[in-house]
């Protein structure tokens, strides 16, 4: 139960972050530096739409990270009308650039703090997927044996149940829902697809010459796992993560929309839309803004992921 059951759009393998042909053994700092350079060059080559998407994502990430430091940004939970200094359903004004919602909170501030929830949720789950799935999958793919059989059967079973239903179930039963709880619950559902990919990659890496060579010079199996298998499984995980991020953002917003995301009054895009949908005919903007944010952010991730995949495909075709 994870994003692959949410949206299996195929094509998840391939290591888009490869810097040169046979980059199977990352060599520490030099590798990092050359990656950075390759990254710089890559941004320059993007089509204009992808560039815009990339810039948008940077903007959203920065705004979410630095929300508390943005000068003049309103308190996202301050209901001005209670204290007589704000109106509900207000249009754009100098103090509320995007207007206010039906309880007179500043929409822009809520959007930015909502981005924080979405992004923390998505990135944490990707990290959890890589750590849990990467470890389990690498072990399964390298050591094989009954452990692998058991693990993969578990993954298959897990994946045959829709993640969203499972999440709804657990989050409702828990009652208490802060971001940490959501991430912990979410990670129960992301690990299987990561495990599957990690195992497939580990399996193919295990057959490579350098693994055999390492074995021949007496490296222990555990060391091989850490030094040879993990580093080569990682690029595949990262590639998959880029596809997974937008799915996780949608997942978070859907939970919030159902009232099962972070507890109110904490701002989240899905929650904002749910709150605004009752008054669509009175004031549509409190729904339009978060919907637009959500769409643009998810679209940007998808666009970027597609571009990276195309680059990787073009590179492997050129070799």
């Amino acid at each position, binding site marked *: *139960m994870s994003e*692959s*059951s*949410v*949206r*299996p*759009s*195929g*094509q998840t393998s391939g290591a888009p972050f490869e810097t040169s042909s046979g980059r199977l053994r990352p060599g520490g700092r030099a590798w990092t530096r050359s990656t950075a350079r390759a990254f710089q060059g890559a941004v320059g080559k993007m089509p204009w739409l992808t560039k815009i998407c990339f810039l948008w994502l940077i903007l959203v990430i920065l705004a979410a990270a630095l929300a508390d430091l943005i000068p003049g940004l309103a308190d996202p939970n301050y209901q001005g009308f209670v204290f007589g200094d704000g109106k509900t359903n207000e249009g754009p004004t100098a103090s509320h650039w995007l207007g206010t919602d039906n309880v007179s909170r500043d929409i822009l501030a809520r959007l930015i703090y909502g981005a924080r929830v979405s992004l923390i949720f998505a990135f944490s789950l990707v990290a959890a997927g890589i750590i849990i799935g990467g470890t389990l999958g690498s072990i399964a793919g390298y050591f094989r044996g009954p452990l692998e059989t058991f693990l993969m*059967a578990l993954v*298959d*079973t897990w*994946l*045959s*149940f*829709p*993640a*969203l*239903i499972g999440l*709804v*179930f*657990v989050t*409702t*039963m*828990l*009652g208490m829902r802060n971001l940490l709880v959501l991430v912990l619950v979410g990670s129960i559902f992301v690990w299987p697809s990561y495990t599957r990919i990690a195992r497939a990659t580990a399996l193919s890496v295990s057959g490579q010459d350098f693994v055999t060579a390492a074995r021949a010079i007496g490296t222990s199996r555990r060391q091989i796992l850490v030094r040879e298998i993990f580093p080569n499984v990682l690029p595949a995980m990262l590639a998959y993560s880029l596809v997974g991020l*937008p799915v996780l953002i*949608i997942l978070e*917003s*859907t939970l919030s*929309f*159902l009232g099962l995301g972070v507890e109110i009054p904490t701002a989240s895009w*899905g929650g904002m*839309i749910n709150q605004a*949908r009752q008054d*669509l*005919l009175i004031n*549509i903007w409190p*729904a339009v803004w978060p*919907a637009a944010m*959500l*769409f643009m952010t*998810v*679209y940007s991730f*998808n*666009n970027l992921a*597609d571009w990276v995949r195309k680059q990787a495909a073009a590179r492997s075709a050129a070799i």
Partner: protein
Amino acid sequence: MQKMIVGRLTRLVVTVLVVSFVTFVGVNVLPGDPVNALIPIDAQQDREFVEQIREEWGLNDPMVVRYGRWLGDAVQGDLGRSLVTGQPVTDEITHRLPITLELMAVAVGFSLLIAVPLGAFSGYREGRRSDRLVSGLAQAGLSLPVFVTGLILIYVFALRLQWFPAVGWNRLSDGLGPNLKSVALPALSLAVTEIAVYTRVLRSDMIATLKENYILSARAKGLTDRFVLFRHGLRPSLLTLVTVVGLNIGFLIGGSLVIEYLFAIPGLGKRLFSAIQQRDFMMVQAITVLITVFYVIVNTATDLVYMVVDPRIRRTN
């Protein structure tokens, strides 16, 4: 083929057992006492009464015993009674299942109707402007959460234009017209994502197929492009699509829960949602198992369809 079906059946049984057990444990381990679903809040302080109810519903037995009991009944087709309404769970399911099934079937059918020609055409015109347009739209469709799509459709077609109802459901017994009207917007909301996924999958397969030698040799026979595209290109390209349709059922089930919530449709998804909130664990248990069974069956069916589409598999088995 027989081997495959036996394998799938085993997998179905195992999956159902695991999922139902996990759900069972989940209901009992996670905070929130199911007994609360049975009694009014003001009576919950009455220790004796609570105990009596617990005993009556068998909530005091060890979990494994209760699970065994549930399983024994379930095998005989008795999924218990709702803790909230007291009605047999099976009754409610048979009442609501057709609604959800119709919603999903219409969504999938509609998606295929749009996505197959779109994906085939887009793959055929790879790299051209029309292909880039289709791919761009697919990417956008993929980026719209179902509830956003649903809201947009509600706003435009129900609230503004008032062509369709914004909420509620008319059963088929109420007449085909009203039924279709109530299924249109919800199914379309689900379909947007599906169309995007299907189109992308078919497009990339189509591109690969069109590079095959037999496409070239078909063209060398002087066959028209359209004939080559549909007769020789489409069928082999549909294989992955069939699998993806099956795998995507998981997404569709989750999506229909959201859509039923948004459109206030009395389907299974909405019932599951409310059952979870009411801690009506008999209901939760039953619907969860049903979903799992459904998912595995659909995927088995997918494999069967796969065989029909690909005669190579059919013959060799």
